């Protein structure tokens, strides 16, 4: 029996040493606690831990994440600002997280920059359990073989230090991620993507309506921005499909005092984009300037 135990420990020793070495090597940029299935949301939640109440909250998908230029908001609207967005947040997720966000940040204004892809089914896997723990204490990993930490440990350092690729998590001090225009590594597939209205989940409109009514009740000003996209992202029937989408959005917000700011049919030069829908730093600055102008005029 002792022989069995010794042999087993001897067998385990290299595994333990390799794992320990890997951890020590990547310790500084070890991924944040896996609270949800979304890597960027987990990293963003870690970033948000030190942040208290804010007056202006940016929330949404990667469109808000990259296209909302923090400096402009801070200088022109309110210095008490944080961008709590992350990749892949859908309207469905936003609706689920509304109360938690309100309780946590108690914002007076929420800005969401959106495009049609936010209106599809979510695969974030948010449920009651992890929503309640989003801003809670440390999460102890329970799965012995979850490659999440190993997989993201390899790229986390790079992601937190680069801003010329799509996976950048180089947060500015307010949580936004402006993407550098210079030397940006454009991906052709992403550039050639099209806005697809056929994938819209119609329940999203109802969820957005509930969200809007909730914010209205809580006296939170909700600014919903329709983001611009490249000319090539628009299919031939774009004018018809976007008109339908916008009509539904007007119906969603009709019983509220919230603001819709629409850039969806404007023609913005390709030099302002990094793909079909995400703006580079210059594009984000310009968009945010225009949002601020609209807010000041309203």
């Amino acid at each position, binding site marked *: *029996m002792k*022989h*069995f135990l010794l042999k*087993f420990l001897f*067998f385990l020793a*290299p*595994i333990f040493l390799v*794992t320990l070495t890997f951890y020590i090597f990547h310790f500084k940029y070890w991924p944040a606690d896996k609270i949800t*299935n979304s890597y960027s949301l987990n990293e963003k939640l870690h970033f948000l831990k030190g942040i208290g109440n804010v007056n202006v909250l940016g929330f949404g998908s990667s469109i808000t994440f990259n296209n909302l230029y923090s400096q402009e908001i801070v200088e022109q609207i309110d210095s008490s600002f944080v961008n709590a967005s992350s990749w892949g947040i859908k309207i469905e997720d936003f609706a689920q997280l509304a109360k938690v966000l309100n309780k946590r940040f108690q914002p007076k204004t929420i800005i969401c920059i959106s495009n049609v892809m936010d209106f599809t*089914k979510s*695969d974030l896997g948010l449920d009651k359990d992890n929503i309640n723990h989003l801003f809670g204490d440390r999460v*102890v*990993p*329970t*799965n*012995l*073989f*979850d*490659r*999440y930490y*190993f997989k993201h440990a390899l790229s986390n350092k790079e992601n937190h230090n680069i801003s010329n690729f799509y996976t950048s998590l180089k947060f500015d001090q307010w949580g936004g991620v402006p993407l550098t225009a210079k030397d940006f590594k454009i991906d052709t597939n992403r550039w050639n993507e099209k806005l697809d209205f056929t*994938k819209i989940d119609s329940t999203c409109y109802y969820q957005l309506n509930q969200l809007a009514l909730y914010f209205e009740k809580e006296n939170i000003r909700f600014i919903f921005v329709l983001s611009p996209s490249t000319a090539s992202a628009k299919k031939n029937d774009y004018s018809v499909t976007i008109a339908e989408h916008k009509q539904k959005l007007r119906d969603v917000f009709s019983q509220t005092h919230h603001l819709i700011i629409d850039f969806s049919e404007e023609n913005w030069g390709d030099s302002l984009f990094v793909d079909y829908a995400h703006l580079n730093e210059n594009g984000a600055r310009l968009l945010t300037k225009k949002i601020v102008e609209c807010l000041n005029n309203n």
Partner: protein
Amino acid sequence: MLFNSIEFAIFLPIVFFIYWFILDNNLKLQNAFLLLASYLFYGWWDWRFLSLILFSTLIDYFIGIKISQTESESLRKRFLGLSIFLNLGFLGFFKYFNFFTESFANAFTLLGQEINPISLNIILPVGISFYTFQTLSYSVDVYKRKLSPTKDFIAFSAFVTFFPQLVAGPIERATNLLPQFYNKREFNYNKAVDGLQQILWGLFKKVVIADNCAVYASQVFNNYEVFSGSTLLVGAIYFAFQIYGDFSGYSDIAIGSSRLFGFDLMQNFNYPYFSRDIAEFWRRWHISLSTWFRDYVYIPLGGSKGSTFSKVKNTFIIFMVSGFWHGANWTFIAWGFINACYFLPILLLEKNRVNTDTVAQGRFLLSFREAFQVLSTFFLTVIAWVFFRSASITEAFGFLERMFSNSFFTKPKTFDETLPFLILFFLCIEYFQREKKFGLEFKDFSLPRPIKWGINYFIIWLLFWYGGSQQEFIYFQF
């Protein structure tokens, strides 16, 4: 606690250490300790259900003694009836109450009468379908005088709650497992090493194959309307490997863990996806459940003896009850019904015991005929799994209708470039080892230790590198 969790990785070595190092040579203490460990294991899920399993244990313990003390046949039958009533009663209440009330209400709605069913917020105790059948088998075997009832309450309780197989099987027969609690267990080095190998293989099946397949199977089944027919087939195949990897992986871990403590559990899966016909598939899939139903339901009903009508009736009963055991949904009953339809022609043509050996036994490759048989049997099971996985019968038919549409002939989406290769690797190992008890059994190989260890390290690397996001074992919901 899940078998691939950190809690279990801490729990198992501690129990092992105490069991062999501190309590060695004391059978009664070892049994008591296993009982305590098993209650801790089960209570970790939800401590509220400990009372239920304790009650179930007490019922069958005392009924077993009462049956044996009584000479009167009618009284013995009544005691057995009481055991069946209570055990199935608990199972029926916790698992099927809402199903029956809702189905009852739906039936009235079809007749134009709306009624509001009583719906209770009932939590299904983990493993109830498994330990209930295990204790029932004890009562029935005592009644049939196949087994003497035990007066050792600790040994009996440990048999009922034995943690490796408590929550998802194998469903052990008292005639196999209970005597092992009476006999002194000696530590056996080879058995323990084999046990660890089997645990490792089980983890591979669960963590690498099942959990990765689960992600894409879910995407396909939850949004089947947007995918092409060929992609739906890929999704259904992923589910076939998800459920196999999940369930047989759990069984491997359960059997391997038991061997660490000196126990031998029954084999629960015998490479079912290499079956050449449906009858063979059902001799290889979830063996503990199918043999339980055969011995305690099918044979008492008359089995395959008697008239053709009797054979047909018994076949449909057994498969549909088996489907119903899996869950309170018409989809499971439909799955059972489909399997009965597959099985019946083979039974009526008396070809159900044609393929009783292993495919390509003693040979390296399959013949073309065997390959065709294996692939077509697999295809039939995949079709049936669509019903098992779908949320409703309507969705299952919708899924199949879309699968067999014109888009069946388009290029499928595989979601992940690596997963098909992992499945292929897995199938190669299983095929090569198809005459062994499990995929990593090295018994007949005289491989040098560095190679054996190299293979194990490789599998462990696959666990860490390709481990999917944690999914609960499917069969925990049964």
